[in-house]
Structure formats: C-alpha cells, structure tokens
C-alpha cells in the first residue's frame, strides 16, 4: 500500500458523510417494513360503490390510477361488467360526494353527477360516451 499522507480534513468530512449515508441507508431498509405494517391496518375505512360511465379496459386503468391518488384512498377496483367502482378510503380523509366529484373531473359520470364535459372530450375515443365497448 503506497504511503500517501491522508489530509486530516478529508477524514472528518468522510466520517460525517459516512454517518449521513448510514442514516439514509437505514431508512431505505426500514421504511418499506414500516409501510408494509401500515398496509395491514384496515380499520377505520369505508367502502363506497359508485356507478360510472366507463366503457373499456383503458377506462378502468385510467379511473383506478387517478382515484388512487385521491386523499385517503386505500383500495380501488372497477367492476368491468357493471362499471361500478368500489373505493375504500380512510374515514375522515374523504367522503362519497368528493369522490364522485373526482370521478366527474376525470371525465366520467358518477351516479347522478354528469361528467365534466371538457375532461370527457379529452378522453381517448374508446372512452367517450356512446362508443362501442372493446379492449
């Protein structure tokens, strides 16, 4: 091993960096465990069913992905036959009316609430109301 003189400053910065990096690494490993535990907590949630005007698998994917990001939503599933969307959310964080509004904003009808026209027109052709159902 060649004998270079290692400056003292470098060593100190190295140590602090090392400590900071250890903290980041630890959190990278602990965070998933913490979140996995959280996933199991199913109490204090409510599930609502809303009738939508979804048509094809594209619509299902779109709705499920967008609603997932609404506040407090824990689970989303759109039934392909009935086009009814089931949303499970944490009580207090959200409610049925706000979720219906969110669905209309994406461009679909939600129960009695009509779709936001602008959003509906932006949808791909297969998702527009009155289109023939296909993949």
């Amino acid at each position, binding site marked *: *091993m*060649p004998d*270079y003189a*290692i400056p003292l400053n*470098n060593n100190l910065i*190295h140590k602090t*960096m*090392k400590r900071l*990096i250890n903290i*980041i*690494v630890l959190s*990278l*490993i602990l*965070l*998933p465990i913490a*979140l*996995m535990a959280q*996933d199991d907590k199913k109490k204090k949630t409510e599930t609502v069913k809303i009738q939508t005007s979804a048509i*094809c698998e594209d619509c299902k994917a779109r709705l499920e992905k*967008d609603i*997932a*990001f609404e506040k407090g*939503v*824990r*689970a*989303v599933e759109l039934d*392909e*036959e009935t086009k009814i969307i089931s949303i499970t959310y944490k009580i207090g964080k959200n409610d049925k009316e706000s979720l219906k509004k969110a669905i209309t904003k994406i461009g679909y009808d939600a129960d009695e609430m009509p779709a936001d026209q602008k959003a509906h027109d932006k949808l791909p052709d297969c998702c527009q109301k009155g289109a*023939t*159902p*296909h*993949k």
Partner: protein
Amino acid sequence: MFFLKIKVMRFLKILLAAVAAFSLNISTFAQKLSGTVFEITEEGEQPLPGVNIYWAGTTTGTASDVDGKYKIKKPADAHDLVFSFVGFESDTIHAPHNSNKYDHVMRGSKTLDEVSVVTRAKTNFVSRLSTVNAQTITSGELQKAACCNLSESFETSASVDVSYSDAVTGAKQIELLGLSGIYTQMMSENMPNLRGLATSFGLGYVPGSWMESIQVSKGASSVLNGYESISGQINVEYKKAEESEKFFMNLYQSHMGRSELNFNTKTKMNEHAHAMVMGHWSRNGSKHDDNGDGFLDDPLYTQYNLFARTDFRGKNFEGQFGVKGLMENRRGGQIGFDHDKPRDVDNGYGIELLTERIESFLKTGFIFSRPQTSVGIQQQFTYHHMDTYFGLTDYEGTQYSYYGNVLFQSYISSTKHTYTTGVSYLYDRYEEQLNDSIFNRTESVPGVFYQYTYSDGAKLNFIAGLRLDHHNEFGFFATPRLHLRYGFNEHNIVRLSAGKGYRSANILAENTSLLASSRQLVVRNAPKMEEAWNYGINFSKHIIVNDRELTIGLDIYRTDFINQVVIDRDADAQKVLIYNLDGTSYSNSIQLEANYELLKGLDVTAAVRFNDVQMTLNNELQEKPLVNKYKGLIALSYATNLRKWQFDLTTQFNGVSRLPSTASNPEAYRLDDYSPAYTIMNAQVTKFFRNWNVYLGAENLTNYKQENPILAANDPFGKYFDSSIVWGPISGIKVYAGLRYTIE
C-alpha cells in the same frame, strides 16, 4: 461463504416451490370467457366472424360467429389466448384473471412491425411465442434504478454486466455471455448504432428517460440486421412520437456532484403525423479523489443531447424521420492537472475528450393489399468526431457512416410460411490519427439476405436465415443463422439457436482505455475479420405456485472463435500486443434465473451465472482477463397496494477474475493473479403522486471499492503506468435523488 449460504437458501426455496406445485389441487372448476372480435375498417370497428380462438399450446378452441361473438371454456391454468385469422397478425393476449368478458380488436396485417420500421409494440415483455431468446427491459424496470443512461440500465439484469474499461476516462463496456461488448451488436430501433468510434463511450450517449424499452437477445440474432452480432444483440427502443406523454421531465442530482436534466414533449401535427423532441443535459462538476491516488475518481464532463423525430402513418404507408445531435466534453486525470496550461510532465497527467455526433434516420414502409406483404426501407447516416488526449498521447478520429436496408416480406402458399428478403449496404469511412501516425480506411459492404420463418401456430416456430456480404477488403463471406422454438405446452418452452457472426475490428476506437496507460501498442499482423460460431439453448418454465407464477429460465451458450483480433496484455506488461488469433478462443456461459412474486407486492428475481472463457494468449490457452467466473444476482422490488410507494433493492455477487499478468513489474507495481470476489448493493425508494414521482437512492451501499485502480498512479509518465486494469467500483457509495414529472 455468504454466497454458499445464499446458494443453499435459493435451492431450498426452489425445492419448496416445486413440492408445493405438486401438492396443489388443481381446480377443475372451468369458467367461460366470452366477448366479441373486431377488425378495423374504413367504417371503424366491425365485428369479424370466423376468427380462430384457442388457448396457446392447445389445439382445442372455437371460432367467432357471424356477429363476431365467441365463448370459450377457461381452464384454471390457462393463460395465453390466441386470436388468429388469415391476413392478420396472430394476437396472443394474457387472459384476464378477474373477468369473464374480453373483447378483441385484430391488429392489421403483419407488416412493418416485423422489421420494426414503425414499431407499434408497447412496453410488453416479449411474449412466450417469441422464437428468439430475448428479454425485454421496460421503462418500468428502468425506473427502478436512477439509470441516467444506457450504461446504467442493466443493474437488475443478470445477463448483462457493465463495468468501467479504465479508471480515468469513464468509458464503460458491457459483457454478455462472457464476451466483451464489442461482440454484442448494439442497435437502436432495429438499426445498428453505437459502433465504430462510438464503441467506448456510446452507452453514455443514450439517456435513460429517452428509452421506452431495451431488448437483450442472446446468441446469434436475425440475419435481417446484419452480420455483426456474435454473442448477442441489444436493441434500444426510443419513445415514439405517437404513444409518448405530452410532456415529461426528469431532474437528477447525486451527492458526488452529478446533475442531469431530461425532457421530452410531443405534438400531434394532424390525423396521421406526430412530432416529438427529446432533450438531455448532464454534468459532473465536482472533483473528488476518495481513494487518494491523486487522480479524479470520476471525470468531469458536460453533455448536451437533442433528438427530434416525426412519424407518419397513412393507410398503406408509414414513415419515420429523426435527427440526433450530441456534444460532450470530458476531462480527467490528476487533480492538479491544469487544462489551460501546456501539457508536460510538470503539469501532471490529464485527459480530455471532445466529442460531436450527429445521427439521422429515415424509415419508410409500404403495405400491399396481399396479406402479410410489405416492403420497408431503413436508412441511417452518422457523423462522429472525437478529439482526445491521454497524457502526452493524442488521438483524433472522424467517422462517416451510412446504413441502408431494404426488406421485402411476404408468404409462400399460406401464412404458416413467411419469408423476408432484401439487400443492405453499409459504408464506413474512418480517419484516425494517433500522435503522428495517420490511419484512414473505408469499408464498403453490400449484402443480400433471405430469411424463412415457419410457424405451425401452436408448438413449433422456426427461423432460418442466410446472408451473403462482400467486404471491400475481406471479400465474400456468408452468415447462416438458425432459431427454433418448441413449446411442449405453454408452460414449458425450449429455444435453440446457432449461427455465425463477423465483425471488423476498430483497434484504436475500441481500445481507447488502453491509451490511458504507458503501454506501447504493437500491431503484430494486419487484423483480419473476426469470425465466430455461437450455439445456444434456452429452457423456460412457468409454474403456478399459490396462485402466482414462478418463471424459471436456463440459458446455455457457447461461442467459438474462428478468428479474433486478440488484445494481449499478458505477453508483456509494458505493451499491448495485437494480433490475429493463433489457437483456440471460446466462451461457455450458463445462467439460471427465476422470478416470482413472493409476497403480495414483492417481486423477486434471483439468478446465477457461470462463465468459462478461455483464449490463446501469448501462445498459451488462458482464462480471458477481467471476466468474472461467476455472478449472482438478487433483485427485490416491493410496491405498496395502489403503487404509491416502491422499494427496490438489488444485490450483485461478483466472482473472481484473472488479472493480466504483471509478474515482470517491480514489486510495488505487481497485482495479484486474481481479483477478489465482492458484493455490490443498490437501493432506491420511489414515491408516486398523480403527475409526478420523487426518488431517493444509493448505489454501492456497502461502499466497496477497488483499492488503487491505477497502477503506478504516482508515476504516470513512467513506463509502468496503467489505468486499464479495473475489476471493481472506483467510487464508493453514491447517494442520489430526483424527480419525474409527466403530463399525459
């Protein structure tokens, strides 16, 4: 010993899964799947009667009725449903698990997709029906690590290894089947790319966020793309104008001082045409030397990269046009080196690389009314210029390159027998200068090819191809290639491949890393064309364990060189001898890979690979230097329900590799005979929001480094200086963070 424990644990896990599979009671409850089949006509979508619908690997099925409707029993273990009709591309879809309804639209006649003049394929994994052993890395996979460019996109792949070629320039190379990256044909959008002068740094010219997917094929590939693939082929598919997001942006920053900015945006020009622009800027601005050898661990660099493309899709005509421009400057060497002062021993050892590159392509395709019949023309023009110095060695190179490929595709008697034939032309003009020596050469290679494909629609697929090329210097040569796929059923598939590959060596451009040393380059004889045979077999097995699918793959490949341009660093530690192979040179590679969703949301990939690569160096059959004898990989990916959080952890176990002999050096500059085995870990956390996501990660978590990667770093102008013997990471742990924003 840790590795042995992993090996045993892994074996036990697989054994357990196999036992579980046998003791499972296969449910005999058969559901029914029904729906309607459509075709696209001038009036829009119309129901299509008479379509054959059957489960892949079986012969029983049904047909769509006069209204296009169908009903088929859904056996519990059925997966892939095939829709087939004369004149249309046979479609295979993954049967929906939770639904009994499925409507299908038949895609148009198989035309340009085959030659990928205009690729419509999305980021799907290659279907099990693919005859060639190819693995697809999708953009979803690419986002698991902050892969900023192509060289960083293989971290979760057990098949492709990426390593630094030297400790000074940042040049990277891949390794496939134990062979160096030059034996893998690099392509972008099915046209050869990143070759010639771009070989050493080309992986850094493809930004990660520009890519839609990467296909890695092992073994000899199709004759349609040329003769240059010996161990395999890597094809990069860029984002396409029609299918990509309206706007995308990515920002990246690492704690070591590397910053990146990417964006892409698209616009619809009219019903038939789309245009897109992709931009990239990256920079490493901070100097650091953590191993204290006086040299920068990572070179300083700035890169600008811009890509504009348009595509046009008409009724019988499709076209794509694109232009790419790149500018990069790169500086490295000793910390004290001053780039503005004249270069001499007092200033220290420095390197600089200035690169300019322009690429332009045009793909056009015409679809005839006869089903499965089309003609496609691919053209690409490349200009590459690099102005470099390594210490007191100057190297400048310019390359002009033109590639043209005309492909005609049709069928004989029935669509079971299809063929593709055509002509190609490859032109390269190299103008290189190394110190005072000038090397100019022109390569002009016209060629013809023919490929026949047979598919019985159920179990057997077979591709046989032959091409004949004429090289202006090396004369005529023939390239035969054969691929076979047999599906015992849809769960058990075997693939065979055999073929020849050729390439003409670019001694200087492919070995710039050797210029970052004091070794003298000695070319013993005029390099001939490199030539090799490659044979391989792949087994794929899919087993359902606990409702989820376990995928197991086994690859066994052998490459035999008939001629190779040997780069010999063993004969003399102060020289690099370059000569045509005199003896045997081969590579045996065996890889076992398994993938399974172990817990809900937790995807696990485990793989192990053994390499036995030997070549005749200095008249003795020896292990090829710097090739790991074995490699292990475990990749864990966990996504929470609704995929709001994603965690990725990848562990690589790298085995020992032989180092080039330094026995004749003075003791201070002698290396061990073998490099040690070591482990590398990378991890990343991603949080997803509606339109954007943020990520935080770390590479090389264990902070493992190759101590003193530069031989004689304290005497760079002396005769023992060598920065090209690199077997491990040069920098330690790297923490990074970034943000991606998307507007669909």
